């Protein structure tokens, strides 16, 4: 178990998507598929829908909060968010969606050492107290 600071509490389990280049959710994510459409992002085309989004922080516009709430309303947002730095704008987006649609998208802030343990594809569980666990994917075994 890794401890993290909880900005928005909730349960989530999902596959990690690690984003190195801070993502501007407002305009940077498609509202049909939840795909990253920021042409300047090295993660262009990856889908955040249903993932545990792992990124250092959000970027840019104040509109990111309502943009995150809209993705959650449409059911194409992330299942949870793990950050390195406090980001009130993303936290409020998750709270707005919870208030209106009862969606749970926990937002937690991890320490660098713990954060660095996470790789894309890991299975992550976030608990309401902010603790999270990483289940590293098992090597797929072929049937003998």
């Amino acid at each position, binding site marked *: 178990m890794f401890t993290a*600071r*909880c*900005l*928005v509490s909730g349960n989530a389990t999902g596959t990690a998507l690690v984003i190195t280049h*801070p993502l501007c959710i*407002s*305009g*940077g994510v498609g*509202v049909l598929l939840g795909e990253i*459409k*920021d*042409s300047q992002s090295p993660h262009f085309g990856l889908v955040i829908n249903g993932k545990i989004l792992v990124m250092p*922080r*959000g*970027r*840019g*516009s*104040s*509109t*990111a*909060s*309502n*943009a995150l*709430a*809209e993705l*959650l*309303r*449409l059911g194409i947002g992330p299942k949870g968010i793990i950050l390195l*730095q*406090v980001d*009130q*704008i*993303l*936290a*409020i*987006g998750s*709270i*707005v*969606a919870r*208030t*209106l*649609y009862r969606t749970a998208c926990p937002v937690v802030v991890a320490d660098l050492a713990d954060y660095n343990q996470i790789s894309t594809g890991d299975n992550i569980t976030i608990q309401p107290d902010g603790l999270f666990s990483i289940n590293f994917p098992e090597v797929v075994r072929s049937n003998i």
Partner: protein
Amino acid sequence: MLVLEDRDISMLRGDEGHSRQLAMEIIVELGKALDAPCLVDIASVHIDGCVYAGRAGLEFTELLSQGGAQVKVPTTLNVGLLDLLRPRLWAGSLDTANAARRLMALYVAMGCQPTFTCAPYQLPKRPLFGSHIAWAESNAIAFANSVLGARTERYGDSFDILAALTGRVPNTGLHVTKNRRAEIVFRLQDIPKRLLAEDVFFQVLGYYVGFRAEALVPAITGIPQSVTEDQMKAFGAAAASSGSIALFHFIGATPEALTIDSALQGAKGVPEIFVTMQDIIRTKDSLISDNLGQLSAVSIGTPHFSITEFDALRTLLDSRSIHPSIAFYVTTGRYVREQIQSLGWLSELELAGVQIVTDTCLYFAPLVNFRGDTVLTNSAKWAHYGPDHQGVKVAFGSLAQCVESAIAGKLVLDADLWLDVHS
């Protein structure tokens, strides 16, 4: 441990109605998560949530406005998605227009002033030095913190209205003196004096600093004391586009940075970056799309054009007219529009072929179908967001280049401006 005052608890209990109760619940939840010791009174709010970005924002605003809830502190509004003074300028769907209009009206009904500008610092009443405020809209946040010395966190849509309904925010982040110190220093090296006087230089410098500083508070040395508010506006807007800059210090020019020591609050060993002409030119070139087509539009006024910028535009136009093949847009706030109208400049500019757009912003609002066009702007923020939002190719240059190109009907280069020579 968040310590609440009686009036906070009273709002939490619902004594002032359901909307303020919900607002205070969320503020307290965030305050606890952020380890704030207490809440702080704010003198004003600038709301960004009035720009329509989907049903979620609209439905949250509808929920809060139920029961006639009113804001508690003077509250201004950022741009919306359409120009309410020129509603025919619209290329989006009717549903979106109606939702966008409804959202703007809901905020006005809650007691917000219909300012509809991203440059609230151009309005007559500005926040005082050291006062706590809750402003959203990234460029306005940067200007309020850096140029006015007021104190605001980087607030987002939907939190802004909670702050307005209660007049309270968690006392954390940039509300606290120690978090306002410079964390990285940029030293201008051998930048020609001639360029240091140009507004467009500050666009490019801001874009570079935002990219390098990311979320740190930057201090910049080598800025002339003659730096103008328009130039600081340009810098902040650009830095808040390429990075998450909410506060910057121009040493010797901005109020919390009379000296480098005061900006650093005595901190030692802060990382330093030297900014050369090569960095500036590379950054400027990065703002220009590949394979530009025939120029079809010029869009300036991101952030909203000021009176001094309108004056510069008139001087540059020098009684000449925009070429008929070019659509020339200037975005500004209603207040500034009224000012230029009373000065007689509005009709003069309109006669020259300039289209004044208020209440909104052209890099994202669907007012004009720009798709596939080549648009020239003097704004790094426009150049940053425009290609993805509007599907355009972007050329970037000075206001003079924008005007000369618009008159000529084609892109006019201004390579001389960027020459690495001192004159």
